[in-house]
């Protein structure tokens, strides 16, 4: 075990997988010579050279499509979007090409591509640079969507995503790049996609949280423990395919659920989880499923307004109390 930041854990995962498989290559804006806009790809150009680590022009639709084509011809591309806000330009290739190629070709052309980069809020980067797009991508059969919340999860999940034969949308969080945690050093340490993680065991309420909301959920759980409410915190880790089983098992135990997310509520992942709990575990609920989501507005610039737009542990505490009728 080593203690490292999420940034370094991701860097290590990329390093190990580039070393392991010569068909893996990385491309994106500023990933090579600039060492990565967020330094996630620091040192990779020096270690692997310009054939494997490639700076692209600002041409998202072009390089995303190029990645999918390269995957059709047998390579395993990792395409970095500097932020997922810019991936919107590439959605035709992610959705109409990557997600559908295996199906349309009846299994002839698999697309083992990873689209990775930070998504969700940063610090005062305003409406066009702060979007959480996981529910968009999770909508499409054929894509997998992964969101790590710890350095260990980041390393294990990214390695699995790179080894996966399907297109994976791997959404990191800029606010979490500096977060430290213990990370296994085994070069073959991977975490399977589609498996949730119980980050904290509890008996009275279930909090389902992902990405940026996991630390907030854990802090909320600590606060609630002080008033005698024992919370179970579940991190899905993979949004699609969703490990609804682990969530349902928890609901059966606690009978109360809060879903915490920084994304907008409407048509979000929280809405999906809520619907699935409703369908599968209605009889176990003692209160409706409550969502704590980001404000349903474009992200404002002003510091105080931005703080109001992103949920914190206080809102999660209040939501748990609400579903507990206390």
């Amino acid at each position, binding site marked *: 075990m080593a203690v490292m930041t999420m940034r370094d854990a991701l860097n290590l995962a990329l390093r190990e997988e580039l070393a392991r498989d010569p068909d893996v*290559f990385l491309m994106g804006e500023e990933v090579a010579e600039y060492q990565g806009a967020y330094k996630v790809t620091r040192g990779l150009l020096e270690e692997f050279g310009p*054939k494997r680590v490639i700076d*692209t*022009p600002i*041409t998202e*639709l*072009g*390089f*995303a*499509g*190029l*990645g*999918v*084509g*390269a*995957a*059709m*011809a*047998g*390579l395993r*591309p990792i395409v970095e979007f500097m932020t997922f806000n810019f991936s919107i330009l590439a959605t*035709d*290739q992610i959705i*109409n*090409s990557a997600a559908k*190629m*295996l*199906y*349309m*070709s*009846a*299994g*002839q*052309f*698999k697309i*083992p591509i990873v689209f990775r980069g930070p998504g969700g809020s940063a610090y005062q980067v305003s409406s066009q640079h702060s979007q959480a797009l996981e529910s968009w991508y999770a909508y499409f*059969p*054929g894509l*997998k969507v992964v969101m790590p919340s710890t350095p260990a999860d980041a390393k294990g999940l990214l390695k699995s995503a790179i080894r*996966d*034969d*399907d297109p994976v949308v791997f959404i990191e969080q800029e606010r979490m790049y500096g977060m430290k945690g213990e990370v296994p050093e085994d070069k073959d340490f991977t975490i399977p996609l589609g498996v949730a993680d119980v980050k904290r065991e509890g008996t009275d309420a279930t909090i389902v949280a992902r990405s940026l909301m996991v630390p907030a959920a854990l802090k909320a759980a600590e606060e609630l423990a002080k008033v005698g409410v024992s919370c179970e915190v579940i991190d899905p880790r993979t949004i699609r395919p969703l490990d609804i089983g682990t969530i349902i098992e928890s609901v059966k135990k606690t009978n109360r659920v809060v879903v915490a997310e920084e994304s907008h509520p409407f048509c979000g992942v929280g809405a999906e989880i809520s619907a699935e709990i409703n369908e599968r575990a209605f009889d176990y609920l003692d209160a409706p499923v409550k969502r704590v989501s980001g404000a349903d507005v474009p992200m404002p610039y002003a510091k105080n307004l931005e703080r109001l737009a992103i949920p914190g542990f206080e809102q999660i505490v209040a939501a748990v109390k609400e579903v507990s009728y206390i």
Partner: protein
Amino acid sequence: MLLIRRFEEKSAESYSLGKIGGFCHLYIGQEAVAVGSISAVRRDDYVITSYREHGHALAKGIPADAVMAELFGKAGGCSSGKGGSMHLFDKSVGFLGGHAIVGGQIPLATGVAFASKYKETDQVTLCYFGEAAVNQGAFHESLNLAQLWKLPCIYICENNRYGMGTSLERAMSSHNVAEKASAYDLASEFVDGMDVMAMRRATQRAVERARNESLPTLLEARTYRYMGHSMSDPGNYRTRAEIEKYQERDPIKLFTARLKEDKILTDSDLSDMESEIKEQIEQALRFAEDSPEPDPKELYTNVYANS
């Protein structure tokens, strides 16, 4: 070319009989472009194109049986009935589809060429699209990348003068497609798309550039489609007279005349060929009719690679 022509005629008939559903975009009139260019590449080279793809598929080597069965939505289709007319695929002959978003195939082709260069094979990629696709950003992004990164991709614009019902005069500020390559310092040529040998020779030059120098080329092939954009198109945007004018330079007519003139082909040869092709098409039709519908469980297969 004759096989493609007769196949497309049979497809039109089948569509009208309700055997083929959805959209059916026919290649009649444009045969020389696919046949001429594909004759210049190897089986292990790649072809990727738009939804007007039956001709390219047959030219690259997908059996007529498998193409017709795919149009009929049957399990024996080259995409097992999951793709249809717009999404024919056959990995064994290097045919990479079949793409229905205008211009979507252009970045894909650029990536396929990237992979060949990365793996250090000398394979080349032929990418086909219409002149209307040239207005999509994806075209420009791809050509920039191909020249910048020196990729062995041959971009073939089939300029048939119409993007669905919109003439190129109504869609493009500059009509010279080949010239657009100069914005990317990319080699280009203008080719008579009704002349199968001219297509072949231009493609051979581009293939040499791709294999020997790993550089891309843009070919603008002037051609014409006789049928509408698809089987649903009444074609009110052009006159019967215009179509007949272009038919005077029909690619099959031109090549046949030339072969006869050079004493390579006799009327009897041609008649034999027509009979053989007629039989081949009839067999394709029987195969398509007899092929079963996909098993209902196929609805859920191949969404993900390992489930």
